[in-house]
């Protein structure tokens, strides 16, 4: 993702009417939300909402398809809200809610679409079929749209349960797994467009499918999908920034590891003719780790600021904090070796894969095997 543009004036010149319309819609939406629901927000919530506008606008300006995606997800979410008419029971009665755009259904659609997309990408790789790849790509777009719709509607549904229950759906393991799938999917779609190759899809979608498989197991055997109210420690605006930043990090690290797998295969000559050259894969891996590291740094710092407010200490070596630190150290070392030492080659790919194992432990393993303050989802 291009953070620093060499010439921002040139960027602004490149904006088309669609961009301006998009930005206007974002601003309008934010103002409407402020006017309508400002009473539920504190000053920080409002600030976060307002900063979201330029943030999402910049995303859309730099990456045009993102605008369509966001517009579609928003339209679906609004349609869902309109169908609800403020009555939770209508989720069971209205056909389109029950089978399309209530939160659970939308997330089920997301899961199904991710699985089919994975299949399409695998087929594309096996048969060198550009059509299958294009299908996989389109399905991935649909999946992230449905998933985003699902989370937005879930946010709304939580307020229908009770105004004291309502909260942004980023509060437990179930919700963040959806977020993880979405973030990884979106990051993949970005790199797919930027590097004009769809052949990494088969690899990246595998890790998303694994996450979705876990999500389904978590739903069917643990009923984890039920919206739960927030315990006092989680009732804070910090959740809105800490969690998404973290999952940009996790998503990017996961993507980097899967691209690393592809990179290793190409270097060994496996599927080499069907995959992008090793330099491209290496570059994607670096870009992903760089963006992941930057956001993971922010997320960890935001987490520390939040911890200072909720627990009275910005850092207390809680298992989650410690493992976040280990993840951070790991990628800090990776970047040092690549950027300063100038190392290239299979070792970095292997390292990125090991990095995913470490990240996965920090993400899920800590909740499973270690106990601590930061245990918001148990298995």
């Amino acid at each position, binding site marked *: 993702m*291009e953070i620093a543009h060499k010439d921002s004036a040139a960027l602004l010149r490149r904006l088309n009417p669609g961009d301006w319309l998009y930005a206007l819609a974002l601003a309008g939406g934010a103002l409407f939300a402020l006017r309508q629901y400002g009473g539920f927000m504190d000053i920080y919530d409002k600030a976060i909402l307002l900063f979201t506008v330029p943030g999402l606008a910049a995303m859309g300006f730099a990456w045009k398809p993102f605008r369509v995606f966001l517009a579609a997800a928003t339209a679906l979410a609004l349609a869902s809200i309109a169908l609800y008419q403020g009555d939770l029971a209508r989720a069971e009665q209205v056909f389109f809610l029950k089978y399309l755009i209530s939160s*659970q259904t939308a997330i089920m659609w997301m899961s199904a679409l991710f699985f089919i997309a994975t299949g399409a990408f695998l087929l594309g790789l096996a048969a060198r079929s550009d059509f299958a790849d294009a299908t996989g790509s389109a399905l991935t777009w649909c999946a992230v749209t449905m998933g985003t719709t699902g989370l937005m509607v879930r946010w709304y549904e939580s307020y229908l349960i009770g105004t004291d*229950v309502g909260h942004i759906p980023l509060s437990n393991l179930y919700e963040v797994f959806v977020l993880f799938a979405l973030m990884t999917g979106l990051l993949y779609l970005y790199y797919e467009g930027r590097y004009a190759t769809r052949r990494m899809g088969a690899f990246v979608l595998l890790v998303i499918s694994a996450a979705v498989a876990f999500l389904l197991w978590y739903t069917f055997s643990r009923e984890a999908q039920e919206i739960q109210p927030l315990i006092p420690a989680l*009732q804070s605006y910090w959740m809105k920034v800490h969690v998404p930043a973290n999952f940009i990090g996790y998503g990017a690290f996961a993507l980097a590891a899967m691209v690393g797998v592809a990179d290793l295969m190409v270097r060994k000559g496996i599927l080499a003719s069907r995959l992008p050259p090793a330099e491209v894969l290496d*570059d994607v891996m*670096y870009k992903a780790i760089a963006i992941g590291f930057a956001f993971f740094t922010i997320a960890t710092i935001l987490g520390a600021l939040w911890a200072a407010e909720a*627990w009275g200490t910005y850092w207390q070596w809680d298992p989650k904090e410690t*493992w976040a630190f*280990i993840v951070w150290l790991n990628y800090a070392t990776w970047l040092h070796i690549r950027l300063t030492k100038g190392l290239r080659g299979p070792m970095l790919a292997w390292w990125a894969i090991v990095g995913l194992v470490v990240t996965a432990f920090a993400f899920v393993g800590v909740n499973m095997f270690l106990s601590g303050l930061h245990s918001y989802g148990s298995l």
Partner: protein
Amino acid sequence: MRHRSTSRALYELLSSMRFAISLLTLLGVASIIGTVVKQNEPYNNYLNQFGPFWFPIFEKLGLYSVYNSFWFLTILGFLVLSTSACIVRQARPMVKDMKGFREHARESSLASFAHQARLPVSRPAAEARAATLAYLTANGFTTRENTREDSVLLAAKQGSWTRVGYFLAHGAIVLICIGGLLDGNLPLKIQMALGGKQLTTGNQLIAQIPPESRLGVDNWSFRGNVFIPEGKSANTAVLNVQDGILLQDLPFTVSLRKFHLEHYESGMPKRFASDILITDNASGKSVEKTIEVNKPFEFAGVMMYQASFEDGGSRLRLLGHDLRGGSRPPFPAEAVVGEAVALKEAGLDYTLELGSFRAFNIENMAVDKPEAEAGSLARLDKHLGSGARSPADKDMQNVGPSIQYKLRDSAGQAREYQNFMQPILQDGAWYLLTGMRNDPSAPFRFMRIPMDDDGRPDSWFAIRRVLLDTARHPEIARRFTATALGAEAGPEVLGRMQETTARTLELFAKGGFESLGKFIESTIPEAERDKAADVFIKILEGSAWEAWKMARTDAGQPAIAPAAQHARLLRDTLNATNDSLHYGAPVYFQPTGFDEVRATVLQVTRSPGKPIVYLGSLFLVLGVFAMLYIRERRLFVLIKDSGEALVALSSNRKSMDVDESFRRHRDALATLLNPAPRP
């Protein structure tokens, strides 16, 4: 000279990338230890976990407080040293590099760049120079010119700020580590080592704690807890250090007006808040404030956080039901949470230790429906719709207050009990629940005391008393036999039946169903056991009915008629009586009333390092983004009078972006310097 070279070598080592990477790896591995061994637990837990051999070894290694241990702090110290050395080492060349344009670069060296191209120039040299300069400026480069004999070199650069990112990010690590050290327990350790402060044990009155275990109000770095019951105040914090405590005097006094504890319908905690009054010791000024989770408050440089809450000494009124034989009436008792009461007065050689009180308990009373035998499609269907739990699956109800207490006998052995104050509806009938366990980690096993027609447990106590009284067994047997066999039965049959009944009652009174079971197993052939068991149950139920009637006569109550709910009560009575034989205590305490007193636990801290850490964090973010996303590019355009230009590009990084930007600039300059002839 020799000394100088050694320190030089040390500096080289410290500032080397290899050393830094080794440190980062070491730090990562060391950090894992603290997540495997639970940190800062009471020392007894470690002793139990590791045994007497390993416990002291691990203690020496600092494994119970890894992140404050000497060796961990040493690694961190080396990280600070290494990073600092790295910054110092890089400072001069980097600043020079940032400032310099390298406008004296020779053609031959430019020609050896990885990215370089020779372009034909068709425009006059001066014009080409001006056009190139304009192009470079438009693309965000700053340029310096160097005019040579037969050429001019435009040395341009952009993105030098990435170097500032380096200093920010690495300086940030040093700042964060220093700030963290100030807020860690190093200042405390120094005070203990140099200031003569000593740990003391936690189980004594605050007033008795000697001055060498108290820290003064001028202490600038501490973290402790203040415990304040409602209506009380406190002006000292307790610092838990290793296996002891220190007291921290606070410059103010905190009084707790009220502690708010709110729950969601599901029983999940919703809000913890303390209404407090803070009075400054020096000025006497007071501030009222509500502190809640995520909403701390700062006073006199001390931050106060809602950390937890406890019982502040709630007073319980209890009714003690004697479970031994005889006709002792229930006796009233009072107990305070956290205190022990001797039960001598009630004639019991036991101590009642009231551990905790809960004003309400929210339970899911929905009957568990067996998972529908439907196919997977129906299961999927069940998971579609909203994320809200379907209301059919839950019936959250407050089942009322409960207490937890230990009964300790004269030998020091204790059993733990959990008793509910109100009857609870289970399987269609109301029961008083009392749970018992021998092992604090085991779940409670509950005895269900059935409620009678008046909604009271009295009938059970009365029936039980008669049923377990061996002196009355012959009378029960006589009455039961008479009712069961009728008048026409011969005396021999009657006698045998009476004997069997008395025997059954005796066995039941001794060990409940278990004794009966053993008796059946030892005397009756296997094939007939089930039938025999049914007979024994019938005898017991009939006897219980007679016992009930006898108990009512004893108490001067009117007779009762058989009814379905009475049959059920008798069955429940037998079950509860059986359980009561394994209850392990001679008395059951029924809570009858309470005055709840809550206490808040506030965490109080002075953390002088916090601003430093926050500043470091800001630097870190800025630095990381600057290093990763500001791209340094140096573009050299050597325009030669001979009608040729040499374009060369260099960057501090090697990446595909560099290749791409070189291609872009090269192609743009090629058209610029050699415009296509106009048609």
